[in-house]
């Protein structure tokens, strides 16, 4: 993970070993510091890698638990015997039998079929069951009726077929391999990290070379200068950052998993935040994925039904007699039933046996009328004609529950125009009235209106069969239809829709204010798609499509200037005829786009179009055939519930609740993490200067080395780790969802002001503060700064055991060494103290600390405590272990750097104050990172 980063660390490690090699060839007794440093660098890379792998593997495991991996079995006829074998053992030419509920084990050509229906949704996105027969109906294998596809499900009926393709050669297999063929794009965060590595490497190499030249011109031996060069480069490597970034990302991934976004690839955490276009599915993602009664029309009036997730408040007028009749038809003319054994569940959660519309009607009537099953029992069914596509109606005949009424009640529902044809009267306010022109017209208006909302409309009618003609003993024959099916009484219309999830409109609004374009891509009919788009706000209330404008101005569609329309509804057919340029134009010029009737393959084209515009595209998908698009997208989001395994594999993220709104919370987290990573990096970079300066001063001024390599490692990988991770818990400074998505090229993770401010402002202040502590320690021990200058050579000579200090005292080598370690410890403590200030100032980039609240992020304080405790342990606990180069520091030295810490904080408060006072001004532009 974070490729560029680990390379930086590897290079650092190798350079360290090279430096040791050079030193060793000069002087076999040279210190092993460089070897340790190299080893630690390598270790950091390896451990971080393992951690990241573990994190990602964990999400993969969660995913695996979703798809219950039952080994697939196939019923095959071999050697005239029926055998059950694992489906991967099938070969071309095998004859297999399938029945309702089976998954088709390979691509098969049907040899015989009894009412076989398959669900091809994972392949084509079409959710309607499709009937299969042995007849060849189309040249295109995807269209013809006599082929069943691997991994699709047989819903009902039975069939026998011959295997024609297995494994990767199946249609699904080909799509899956297509998906693996789509190149994996670099994630935005990877690009940012790479950019950051470039900056760090640039600074390191240029500093290194400058000081190499200085060292050479100061008459240092070239070999030494090379070691200096390497030392400077390595000192610039932020050892702890790789670990910090990884931990930060996985913390966010965890947080997102809690909000139902399971991130498979850590880097994808941030990608979601920089998303500028979301291509979303409709069914299941934006909608609830269940048909629901939306409108009713009776008594010449349209009533609205509650379509929210729980249907709790149905507010339409239920006092009319017409409603009584209509509700009776609803309950009786319906074959759907609740599965037994779920009495405790709320009605909307109960599972129903039956098709989508009947389920909708059943639940609707259950909510309003109560126990439907009981009502049905009281109105015993005597005959029934189920719905079929030629009749387009469904009919049933019942006894009534009124013991005084001996008549049979015939109820019927179906396509409204077919129902109306059969009617001669209409019920208004509970009274039958003759169906005349005006009522027929009213019916048509209502029908058109409901149809225009993209809803599926059903008509309902009934007839009380006269008791004299149809006595109780009358035997109804469905085949001969020995009962009247015309001159019925029309009762009303009812329309259904798959309603949007209640959280979606809000989420779409949030996306809009966050500058994210939401594009709906669906296989549904354009009218339905548009209606849903309008109801969730993907097409906002006041924007029009070309068709709307044409209608309003009463001109032909062709005459409308198509750029006047903000919104566009594009069908798959239109998309097919478009050139890439036209598609780009379309995507760029309409802010609200709905793609309807698209095949899943076209999703890939849409995604590519968006990416050509430079957008960061998030795509949702569930079917196998979505996987190329998921892979191609900057972030592919698979549905956790409805999604196929292939889609989940191709995706970077899995939406556990299939809810669009979860994406938006994911975006929020992604943006927050980007901001917080900025803070983390700024925090980490700052002390780099404080660690580097001593070395530079050491080379140029010849002071005894102020801080050693091992000590630096203890800062980078010890005291600073927890605080920099703590910044990941920082709350957003302002509403991040009111910002535009960041520009890939302009809003960099590490930009010029960040680098300059960290290196040249705070970093330098830190170094100065640390140097004051260093000089305090040396001066109080007897070496005044004036003596120290140029003392390095003598200082480091092992055979000089009577080096004079400023007071004329003489020091042995080991005494000097010990003093040097005390200096390291003091420098270390000084950096640590000032890093506390740095941590506090990095909490915000613009707001004052007091606006942000000093104590809102508790983890920061844990970080600060950890810093202090680690430092105390190092100095007082491990101060006697000479290998670590720490000594027990006098208590007062811990406080010398405190004024500088306060200075840093005050300076940064001033910076933020000016930024807030003059937004957009010179200061803001140069000092805001």
């Amino acid at each position, binding site marked *: 993970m974070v490729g560029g980063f680990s390379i930086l660390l590897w290079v650092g490690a190798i350079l360290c070993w090279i430096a040791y090699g050079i030193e060793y060839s000069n002087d076999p007794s040279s210190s092993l510091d460089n070897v340790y440093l190299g080893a630690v660098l390598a270790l950091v890379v390896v451990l971080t890698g393992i951690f990241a792998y573990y994190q990602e593997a964990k999400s993969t495991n969660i995913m695996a638990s979703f798809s219950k991996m039952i080994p697939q079995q196939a019923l095959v006829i071999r050697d005239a015997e029926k055998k059950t074998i694992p489906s991967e053992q099938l070969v071309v030419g095998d004859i297999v039998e399938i029945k309702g509920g089976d998954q088709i084990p390979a691509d098969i050509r049907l040899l015989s079929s009894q009412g076989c229906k398959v669900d091809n949704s994972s392949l084509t996105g079409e959710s309607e069951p499709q009937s299969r027969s042995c007849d060849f109906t189309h040249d295109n294998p995807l269209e013809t009726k006599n082929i069943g596809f691997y991994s699709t499900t047989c819903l009902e009926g039975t069939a026998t077929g011959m295997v024609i393709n297995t494994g990767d050669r199946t249609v699904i297999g080909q799509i899956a391999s297509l998906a693996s063929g789509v190149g994996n794009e670099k994630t935005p965060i990877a690009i940012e990290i790479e950019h950051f590595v470039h900056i760090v490497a640039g600074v390191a190499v240029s500093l290194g070379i400058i000081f190499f030249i200085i060292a050479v011109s100061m008459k240092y031996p070239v070999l030494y200068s090379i070691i200096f060069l390497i030392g400077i480069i390595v000192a610039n490597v932020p050892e702890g950052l790789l670990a910090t970034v990884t931990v930060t990302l996985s913390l966010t991934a965890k947080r997102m998993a809690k909000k139902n976004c399971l991130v498979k690839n850590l880097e994808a955490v941030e990608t979601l935040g920089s998303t500028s276009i979301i291509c979303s599915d409709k069914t299941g993602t934006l909608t609830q994925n269940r048909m629901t009664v939306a409108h009713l029309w009776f008594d010449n009036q349209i009533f609205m039904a509650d379509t929210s997730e729980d249907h709790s408040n149905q507010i339409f007028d239920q006092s009319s007699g017409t409603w009584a009749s209509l509700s009776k038809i609803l309950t009786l003319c319906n074959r759907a039933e609740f599965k037994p054994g779920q009495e405790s569940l709320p009605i909307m959660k109960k599972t129903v046996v039956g098709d989508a519309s009947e389920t909708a009607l059943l639940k609707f009537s259950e909510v309003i009328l109560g126990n439907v099953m009981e009502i049905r029992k009281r109105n015993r069914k005597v005959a029934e004609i189920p719905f079929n596509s030629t009749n387009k109606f469904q009919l049933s005949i019942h006894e009534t529950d009124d013991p005084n009424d001996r008549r049979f009640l015939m109820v019927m529902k179906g396509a409204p125009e077919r129902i109306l044809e059969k009617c001669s009267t209409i019920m208004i306010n509970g009274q039958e009235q003759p169906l005349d022109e005006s009522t027929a017209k009213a019916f048509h208006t209502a029908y058109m209106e409901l149809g225009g909302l993209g809803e599926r409309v059903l008509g309902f009618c009934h007839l009380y069969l006269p008791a004299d003609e149809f006595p109780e003993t009358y035997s109804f024959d469905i085949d001969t239809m020995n009962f009247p099916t015309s001159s019925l009484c029309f009762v009303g219309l009812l329309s259904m829709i798959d309603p949007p999830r209640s959280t979606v409109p809000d989420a779409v609004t949030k996306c809009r204010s966050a500058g994210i374009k939401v594009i709906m891509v669906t296989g549904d009919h354009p009218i339905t798609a548009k209606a849903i788009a309008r109801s969730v706000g993907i097409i906002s209330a006041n924007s029009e499509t070309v068709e709307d404008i044409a209608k309003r101005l009463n001109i032909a569609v062709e005459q409308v200037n198509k750029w006047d329309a903000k919104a566009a509804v594009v069908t798959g057919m239109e998309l097919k005829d478009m050139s890439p340029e036209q598609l780009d134009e379309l995507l760029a010029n309409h802010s609200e786009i709905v793609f309807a009737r698209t095949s899943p393959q076209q999703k890939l084209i849409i995604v590519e179009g968006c990416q050509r515009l430079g957008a960061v595209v998030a795509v949702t998908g569930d079917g196998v055939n979505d996987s190329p698009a998921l892979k191609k997208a900057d972030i592919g989001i698979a549905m956790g519930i409805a999604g196929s395994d292939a889609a989940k594999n191709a995706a970077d993220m899995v939406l556990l609740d299939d809810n669009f709104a979860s994406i938006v919370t994911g975006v929020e987290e992604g943006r927050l993490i980007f901001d917080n990573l900025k803070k983390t990096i700024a925090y980490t970079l700052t002390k780099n200067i404080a660690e580097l300066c001593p070395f530079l001063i050491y080379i140029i001024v010849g002071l005894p080395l102020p801080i050693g390599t091992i000590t630096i490692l203890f800062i980078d990988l010890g005291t600073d780790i927890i605080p920099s991770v703590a910044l990941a818990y920082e709350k957003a400074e302002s509403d991040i969802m009111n910002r535009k998505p960041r520009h890939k090229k302009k809003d960099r993770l590490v930009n010029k002001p960040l680098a300059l401010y960290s290196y040249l402002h705070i970093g330098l202040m830190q170094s100065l503060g640390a140097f004051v502590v260093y*000089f305090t320690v040396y001066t109080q021990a007897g070496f005044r700064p004036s003596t120290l200058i140029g003392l390095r050579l003598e200082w480091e000579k092992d055979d000089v055991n009577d080096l004079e200090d400023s007071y004329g005292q*003489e020091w042995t080598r080991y005494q000097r060494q010990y003093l040097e370690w005390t200096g390291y410890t003091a420098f270390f403590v000084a950096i640590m103290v000032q890093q506390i200030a740095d941590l506090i100032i990095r909490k915000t980039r613009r707001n004052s600390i007091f606006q942000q609240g000093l104590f809102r992020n508790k983890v920061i304080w844990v970080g600060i405590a950890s810093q202090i405790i680690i430092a105390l342990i190092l100095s007082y606990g491990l101060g006697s272990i000479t290998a670590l180069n720490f000594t027990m520091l006098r208590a007062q030295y811990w406080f010398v750097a405190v004024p500088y810490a306060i200075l840093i904080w005050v300076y940064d408060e001033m910076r933020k104050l000016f930024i807030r006072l003059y937004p957009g001004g010179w200061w803001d532009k140069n000092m805001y990172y």
Partner: protein
Amino acid sequence: MRQQLRSRRAPTFPHGYRYRLDDQDEVNQNYLADEEEEAEEEARVMRVPNLEEEEKEEEQKEEEEGQGQPTGNTWWQKLQLMNEYLWDPEQRMSLARTGLILVIYFFFYASLAAVITVCMYTLFLTISAYMPTFTERVKPAGVMIRPFAHSLNFNFNVSEPDTWQHYVISLNGFLQGYNDSLQEEMNVDCPPGQYFIQDGNEDEDKKACQFKRSFLKNCSGLEDPTFGYSTGQPCILLKMNRIVGFRPELGDPVKVSCKVQRGDENDIRSIHYYPESASFDLRYYPYYGKLTHVNYTSPLVAMHFTDVVKNQAVPVQCQLKGKGIINDVINDHFVGRVIFTLNIET
């Protein structure tokens, strides 16, 4: 020429110009990447450029010619960015801005420097020029020997003066400061056996006790200018590291004693110490620091190895002995002791 240039550049233009049109400063703002705006911008870019192109081109042409053929997009962009940096025709202030930045940085660093100066100044206010604040790091006292020849292995061949001549030179040089005449002129002859305590203000100059070269007798180099090296009886001088305010405890002078460190005790059959007491007299303590105790002369003990096994490396350890003297610090081999080897060949 100009036409040519333009046509050759044409395809790269939209890109380069886009960079320029975007206000450089906005780079860090959180503003929108709106596709529509960008598309518009691109369109504008295609139309507008040639107005300012003329003036820009004048400047660019020269640079470009120096550059030869622009090798590609990136070179071209870099050139343009560079150019912008020096002089941005749209803003007409780029260089001025750079100047402003420099001024601001100058003031920032100047004030930092001032802060640091004040801090260091206050630090020095709290520090005495005569007495170090803490002396625990320099204690216990270290020990060093002369001649000092970057190595503690004394390897020489008696019959080859070249192998020991540098020891003699080193010793002679070292003892120049101990010449009797010099000592008599500069220092006072103070009573032995007691501390030479000089009360009075810290900043008063302190007198120093004489330590004459002649105290070293046979190892003074006065009688034997080769310090015994020519006869295989080398003299080695031992001195204790100076520590301000150090006084041997309880009026008990610190003694020196040498013996074979490892191996046969009899490898060294006799050592003569000069002064004969083999100790550092109390009158040389305390030391008042080099600012006031200018002529302080470190007392010495000379070890004259008169009978050492020849043609064999003999490790010798010389230790300080006395109350409160520490000579067994594990990490530091020069605290209260010194170890060297004698390898005298004949």
